[in-house]
């Protein structure tokens, strides 16, 4: 298995709040509806936040932007309070973009540091295992080709 995931976004953030409080904000529907979605972060209305916060459980975060309803759906893959959380993430009806989000939280003084890793493998389910290494190698090679100067 290759060490590097295919395509990845990583964001690191310090919080003055405890690891437990930060962790719980990811799973408590009341909190999710206040920071992850809604007018606090962008011009949208929260229609429904439901989740089954256990490994194998699913979630559905439904919002409305202008006239469009967008349902963010996924499945919890790992829940280890307050340090580690993994879930799949997709916009319903845009199944081409299957992705996975990993949250790692470590204590820092009285607060904590959160590392979010969002990986996309568009054929996550279909190509897991057998061809993932090939996929990874390919994207890596293409990314290098893209980054190399004078490839236009």
């Amino acid at each position, binding site marked *: 298995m290759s060490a590097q995931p295919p395509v990845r*976004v990583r964001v690191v*953030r310090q919080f003055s709040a405890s690891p437990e409080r930060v962790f719980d904000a990811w799973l408590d529907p009341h909190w999710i509806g206040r*920071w992850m979605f809604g007018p606090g972060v962008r011009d949208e209305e929260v229609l429904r936040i439901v989740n089954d916060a256990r490994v194998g459980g699913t979630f559905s975060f439904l919002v409305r932007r202008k006239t469009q309803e967008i349902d963010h759906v996924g499945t919890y893959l790992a829940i280890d309070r307050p340090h580690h959380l993994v879930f799949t993430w997709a*916009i319903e009806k845009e199944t081409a973009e299957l992705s996975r989000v990993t949250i790692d939280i470590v204590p820092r003084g009285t607060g904590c540091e959160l590392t979010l890793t969002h990986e*996309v493998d568009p054929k996550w389910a279909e190509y897991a295992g057998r061809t993932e290494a*090939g996929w990874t190698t390919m994207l890596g*090679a*293409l990314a290098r080709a893209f980054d190399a100067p004078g490839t236009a």
Partner: protein
Amino acid sequence: MVEHQTARLDGIFHALSDATRREMLHTLSQHERSVGELAAPFRMSLAAASKHIKVLERAGLVRRNVQGRTHMCRLAPEPLSAVQEWLRFYERFWTDRLDALDALLQTEPPPPVRKKGSPR
């Protein structure tokens, strides 16, 4: 934004989702090849190879140059910038939300769960 990107990304991801096409791209990342040269390692017909190359062309990852009777293909990695834009979108998506979470945590006092805390 994401909506606008989706069709283009679908094409790129679809092109990359096939092992034969990935291998073809890998070959082309070294230097340009004819359709026949691309087909050779797979023991496939020129027609079958051409079908794969068409998918890659549609995704914008390969350009074909007709030189007499020979079709020369070369890698065109530029569309991968769509993948990079996708990444930037999500970087901002999460950064904005983590800002909101931090602000919310700071305005709300922690729940009174200390051992010596009085009830409510």
